[in-house]
C-alpha cells in the first residue's frame, strides 16, 4: 500500500510535536482549519526518491469526544473520509511512561477502522521510571498492529517508522474495545453521560490489558521527580523559585545580549554610512540611508534579546517546569476570578497575545473565556521587549545592586510583574462587572521532568526570530518609508522659511551646531512635524514630545514599531557626520519649550508604564474580534487599556518628576 497522507494524533505532552518536527524538519507550515480558528500544521517527509508523504499534525487531545474546538477538529476530520486531509494512516503518538491514559485515545482511534501505527514515544523516560512495555503482546492484542518505539529526544526509532510507512501493511480486523455502546456514542456526540460511561468501560479494559503488557518498578528517577516537585510546587517556595527564575532570565537577557546587539548596531550604522558615501546623492539614497536602513536596524538589533527570551520559554516548557508554573499560578489566579484554564493563555501571553487569545478556546464557560481574552494583552509580550529595552537603556542608570544585580534587569522584571498584577486586578473588576460565579477546575497532567531537546529549542528560536524579523520587518519598512517622506517634505515653503530663520554661524567651528539646527527646523516644519505638534498638547502632560507622539501612533500597528519609528525620525534629523547611536541622540534631545532633556527618569518611566497597559497592537484587536465575533469587546478593550495607560503614565510622570 503506497501511502501519501498521514495524520499524527496524540495526547497533549505525548511528544507529538517533537515527532512531527523530526519527521518533517523545516518542511512545515501552519494554517487554519476552515470555519474554525484552530491551527493546522502540515509538513512533508520524503520516504523514497519518488515517494513523498504529507503529514498533518492534529491538535493534541485526550479523547475523540470533543470538549473544545481543537478536539472537535480531530473527530470532524477522522469521521469524514471525504475531508481533503483524511489520512490513509494515523500515527498515534503515546507517552510510554503514561500508557494507561494515552491508550484511551488510541483505542478510540483504532475503533474508527483507519489503519494505525502505535508509536511508543518517550521510551527513555519510561525506562527511567521503570516502565517496561511488551511490544509484541501489545501488537497482538490489536490484531497485529504496527507498534514502534520512539525516542524523539535522541531521534531513535524514526528510521524504522519510515520503513513501516514505506511498506505499510494493514493488520487483522480485531477490535477488542469496540462495543455497542461505542457505536451509539459515536453516532451521537452530544450525549456526555453516554460518553462518560463508554470511557469508563474502556479504562476498565485498558487496566486489565495493561497487567499483561506493562511491568512497573519503582525507580530512583520517579522518586527524584517527586522530591523536586515537593519544592517547585510548594505553596511558598514554589513562588519564590519562580520569581527567582524570572529574575535570572531578565538579568541574563541584559548581560548576554549586549555584545551581539552592539555588533548589529554597528553593522547597520556602517551600512547606512557606506550607502550614503557610495551611492549617487539624491532623495532615493536619503530614503535608503536615513529611512529604511535605520528603521530596520532598530528592529533587528533586538533579535538577540527575542531569541534569548524564547530560548528560556522553550527550555522551561521542554523540561516540564512550565506545567508546574501553571499549577502554582492557578492558585494565585483563582481569587481574581480567573479560571484555572486561563493560566495557560496568560503565560503564553508573555510570548505573544495572539496565540494566547486563541488558546482561550479551551475555556468552556463563555464569561470566563471573555475575561481571559480581555486581560491577556496586559501580559508583557515579546513585542514590548524592544520598547522596554530602549527606554531602560535611555533612562535607567547602569548600576549594580548588591554588586551583582543589574538595575536595568530589575526594572525589566518589574515591568513584566506590573503587567501580570494588572491583568489579575482587571480580571477581578471584570468578574464583578460581568457577575460571573461559574466554578471550574483546572485538570492537568503533570509531565515528568526531562532534559530539553536541542532540535526543538533550535526550531522554536529560529521560527520565532524569523517571524519577528520578517513580519515586523515588512511593516516597519513600510512605516519607515511613510515616515521618511513625511519627515523630508513639508507643506508649502514652510521648511525653507524655517531654515532661513536659523542664524548663520559666525565661527566655522559652530558649523556642526548650525547644521543640527537646520535639520531640526526642517523636521519640525515637515508634514510629520505639523502632525506631531497637533497631538503634542494631548501627550505633553505625560512628559512626551511630538516625536514620541508620532511613534505612539505608528506603533499602534505593532508595539515594536515604536523603536523603528524613533530611529527613522532621529535619523532624518541627524547630521550624517555625527556617529552617535539612537540612544545617544535621544539622550541629547532637548525640549525647546523647557530647555530641559526630553528623556528624563520621569518621562522614560511614564513611557514604559504607558506601553505596559496600552493596546498598541492592531493584530490583537483583530484576533479579539474574531474570537468574540463582535466589535463591542475589542472596542471596550481598547478604551479601557488606553485610559489605564494614559492615567498610569500621567501618575508615573508626576511621581518621578
Amino acid at each position: 500500500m503506497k501511502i501519501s497522507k498521514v495524520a499524527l494524533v496524540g495526547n497533549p505532552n505525548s511528544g507529538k510535536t517533537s515527532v512531527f518536527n523530526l519527521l518533517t524538519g523545516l518542511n512545515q507550515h501552519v494554517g487554519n482549519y476552515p470555519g474554525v480558528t484552530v491551527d493546522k500544521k502540515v509538513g512533508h517527509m520524503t520516504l523514497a526518491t519518488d515517494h513523498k508523504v504529507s503529514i498533518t499534525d492534529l491538535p493534541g487531545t485526550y479523547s475523540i469526544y470533543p470538549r473544545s474546538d481543537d478536539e472537535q477538529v480531530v473527530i470532524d476530520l477522522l469521521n469524514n473520509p471525504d475531508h481533503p486531509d483524511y489520512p490513509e494512516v494515523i500515527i498515534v503518538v503515546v507517552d510510554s511512561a503514561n500508557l494507561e491514559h494515552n491508550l484511551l485515545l488510541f483505542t478510540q482511534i483504532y475503533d474508527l477502522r483507519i489503519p494505525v501505527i502505535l508509536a511508543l514515544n518517550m521510551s527513555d523516560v519510561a525506562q527511567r521510571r521503570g516502565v517496561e512495555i511488551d511490544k509484541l503482546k501489545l501488537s497482538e492484542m490489536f490484531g497485529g498492529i504496527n507498534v514502534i518505539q520512539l525516542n524523539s529526544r535522541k531521534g531513535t526509532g524514526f528510521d524504522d517508522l519510515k520503513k513501516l510507512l514505506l511498506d505499510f501493511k494493514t493488520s487483522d480486523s480485531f477490535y477488542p474495545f469496540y462495543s455497542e455502546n461505542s457505536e451509539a456514542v459515536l453516532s451521537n456526540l452530544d450525549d456526555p453521560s453516554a460518553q462518560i460511561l463508554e470511557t469508563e468501560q474502556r479504562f476498565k479494559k485498558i487496566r486489565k490489558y495493561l497487567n499483561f503488557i506493562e511491568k512497573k518498578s519503582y525507580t530512583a528517577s520517579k522518586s527524584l521527580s517527586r522530591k523536586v516537585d515537593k519544592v517547585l510546587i510548594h505553596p511558598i517556595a514554589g513562588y519564590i523559585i519562580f520569581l527567582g527564575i524570572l529574575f535570572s532570565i531578565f538579568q541574563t537577557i541584559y548581560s548576554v545580549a549586549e555584545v551581539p546587539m552592539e555588533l548589529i548596531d554597528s553593522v547597520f550604522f556602517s551600512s547606512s554610512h557606506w550607502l550614503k558615501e557610495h551611492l549617487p546623492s539624491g532623495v532615493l539614497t536619503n530614503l535608503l540611508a536615513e529611512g529604511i536602513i535605520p528603521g530596520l536596524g532598530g528592529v533587528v538589533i533586538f533579535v538577540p534579546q527575542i531569541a534569548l527570551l524564547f530560548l528560556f520559554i522553550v527550555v522551561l516548557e521542554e523540561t516540564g517546569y512550565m506545567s508546574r508554573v501553571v499549577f502554582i499560578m492557578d492558585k494565585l489566579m483563582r481569587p481574581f476570578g480567573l479560571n484555572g484554564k486561563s493560566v495557560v493563555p496568560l503565560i503564553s501571553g508573555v510570548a505573544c497575545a495572539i496565540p494566547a487569545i486563541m488558546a482561550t478556546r479551551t475555556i468552556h464557560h463563555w464569561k470566563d473565556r471573555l475575561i481571559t481574552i480581555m486581560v491577556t494583552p496586559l501580559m508583557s509580550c515579546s513585542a514590548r521587549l524592544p520598547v522596554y529595552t530602549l527606554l531602560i537603556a535611555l533612562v535607567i542608570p547602569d548600576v549594580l545592586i548588591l554588586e551583582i544585580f543589574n538595575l536595568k534587569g530589575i526594572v525589566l522584571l518589574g515591568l513584566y510583574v506590573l503587567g501580570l498584577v494588572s491583568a489579575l486586578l482587571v480580571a477581578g473588576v471584570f468578574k464583578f462587572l460581568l457577575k460571573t460565579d461559574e466554578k471550574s477546575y483546572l485538570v492537568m497532567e503533570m509531565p515528568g521532568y526531562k532534559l530539553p531537546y536541542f532540535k526543538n529549542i533550535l526550531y522554536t528560536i529560529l521560527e520565532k526570530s524569523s517571524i519577528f524579523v520578517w513580519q515586523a520587518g515588512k511593516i516597519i519598512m513600510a512605516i519607515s518609508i511613510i515616515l521618511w517622506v513625511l519627515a523630508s517634505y513639508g507643506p508649502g515653503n514652510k521648511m525653507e522659511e524655517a531654515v532661513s530663520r536659523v542664524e548663520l554661524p559666525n565661527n566655522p567651528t559652530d558649523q556642526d551646531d548650525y547644521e543640527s539646527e537646520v535639520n531640526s527646523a526642517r523636521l519640525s516644519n515637515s508634514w510629520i512635524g505639523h502632525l506631531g505638534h497637533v497631538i503634542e498638547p494631548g501627550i505633553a502632560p505625560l512628559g512626551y514630545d511630538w516625536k514620541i507622539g508620532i511613534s505612539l501612533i505608528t506603533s499602534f500597528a505593532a508595539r515594536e514599531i515604536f523603536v523603528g519609528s524613533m530611529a527613522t525620525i532621529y535619523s532624518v534629523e541627524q547630521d550624517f557626520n555625527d556617529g552617535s547611536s539612537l540612544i545617544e541622540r535621544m539622550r541629547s534631545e532637548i525640549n525647546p519649550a523647557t530647555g530641559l532633556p526630553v528623556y528624563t527618569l520621569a518621562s522614560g518611566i511614564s513611557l514604559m508604564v504607558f506601553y505596559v497597559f496600552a493596546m498598541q497592537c492592531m493584530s490583537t484587536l483583530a484576533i479579539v474580534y474574531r474570537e468574540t465575533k463582535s466589535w463591542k469587546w475589542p472596542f471596550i478593550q481598547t478604551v479601557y487599556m488606553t485610559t489605564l495607560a494614559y492615567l498610569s503614565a500621567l501618575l508615573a510622570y508626576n511621581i518621578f518628576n
Partner: protein
Amino acid sequence: MLQTVLIVIIFASACYYMGRLAYRNLTSKDCHCGSCGDTALREDIKKT
C-alpha cells in the same frame, strides 16, 4: 524628476500596503498579521 516620481511610487506602495493590512485585519474573520505564522492561510488567500 525621475527620483521624485520613484519616491511617490514607493510612498504610495507603502501607504497601500499599510492600508490593505489594516483593512484586512479589521474586516476579515481571519488573522493576517502573520505573527502566528499562518503562512498557509496567506497562501490560500493568494490562490483565491
